[in-house]
């Protein structure tokens, strides 16, 4: 005896067909399918109110530890001289544009990293200016969103440059690691194909960069 459902009965289980749509020889199987769905437990599950207190206790601990860590790190930044290096990258909309992007990079010379980094290091050793460049000839609007601006796609808009299709923005970023992506036309999230990416833990990937002494991609 077969123990798999007929394809029509599977559609019945999916709610796409009614019992009357099935040939009579499948009715017995469909009734077994009905018993299967009838056994599904849809009762609500209520968790104890104490869960909220436990979560908030951990949250407060975490918040306190973060504040302590930030204070320590601030003191170290004040106390220790450090060199700031800034990475410049070219973002493209896809591998197919990689060659064109490389050309744009050659035609649009970025300022030497040392120049910008030195300038910034002299005034604000805990942050650095990073110039974002995206080659997006069909775009009407481009922004860069990341951990540094709470993923607000409108916080750091890129502006068109003289070179066709090239968008740029210069953003002051704190020293440290940053995850980011470009947002094209307010809805399309684009990662940097040339940059490393990390799993964001929720099924997507973000580009990642590091700004700081001896900064290098992770």
């Amino acid at each position, binding site marked *: 005896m077969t123990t798999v459902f007929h394809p029509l009965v599977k559609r019945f289980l999916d709610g796409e067909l009614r019992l009357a749509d099935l040939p009579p020889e499948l009715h017995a199987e469909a009734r077994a399918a009905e018993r299967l769905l009838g056994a599904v437990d849809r009762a609500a599950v209520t*968790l104890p109110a104490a869960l*909220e207190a436990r979560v*908030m206790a951990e949250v407060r601990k975490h918040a306190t530890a973060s504040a302590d860590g930030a204070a320590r790190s601030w003191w170290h930044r004040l106390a220790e001289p450090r060199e700031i290096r800034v990475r410049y990258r070219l973002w493209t909309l896809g591998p197919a544009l990689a060659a064109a992007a490389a050309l744009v990079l050659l035609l649009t010379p970025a300022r030497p990293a040392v120049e910008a980094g030195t300038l910034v290091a002299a005034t604000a050793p805990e942050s650095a200016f990073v110039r974002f460049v995206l080659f997006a000839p069909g775009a009407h609007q481009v922004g860069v969103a990341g951990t540094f601006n709470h993923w607000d796609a409108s916080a750091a808009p890129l502006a068109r440059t003289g070179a066709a299709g090239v968008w740029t923005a210069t953003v002051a970023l704190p020293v440290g690691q940053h995850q980011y992506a470009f947002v094209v036309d307010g809805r399309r999230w684009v990662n940097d194909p040339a940059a490393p990416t990390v799993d964001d833990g929720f099924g997507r990937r973000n580009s990642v960069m590091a700004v700081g002494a001896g900064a290098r991609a992770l």
Partner: protein
Amino acid sequence: MGTRTDGELVRAVLAGDTEQYAELVRRYRDRYARFAARMLGSADEAEDAVQDAFIRAFEQLGQCRDPDNFAGWFFLILRNRCLAERRRAVRAGPGVDAVSVPATQRADGPLEQDERRRALQQALLELTPEQREVFVLKHVEDLSYEEIAGRLGASVPSLKMRMHRAYDRLRERLKDVL
């Protein structure tokens, strides 16, 4: 003053008002508890999973791209937690799954119905986590394939394939009680 939106609460927490997070916990504590309980086979495990997911969500709140969609983002954290937990349980071997979901606390149907319900819950735990997830979202949470696809970022045909394999495995497993 009206109820604050999820987006307003998330932004307040990110700005340093940590206590506002309690409102998000209250709001979503039970909303996905049933999903977690059916995924994990136990209300106790669901409680642990929901608690862990809230703590992880707080730690990573800066990565929440759309604060107004905190609920959808939180669901994905909880879902990943449930999938990881089930894979760990499978590696640990049989004998760790006591079916203690409310089925054991009910007396609202004939004995046969109750037994079938327990048998189904046990059989669900023997599906792959991905198959179980689709079954639970469609037949427990009552979502359409299109809604599930939107939540999980999967295609409808791939979800149907998972589900249809799940139907066959459930029928095989439950052939004596259906």
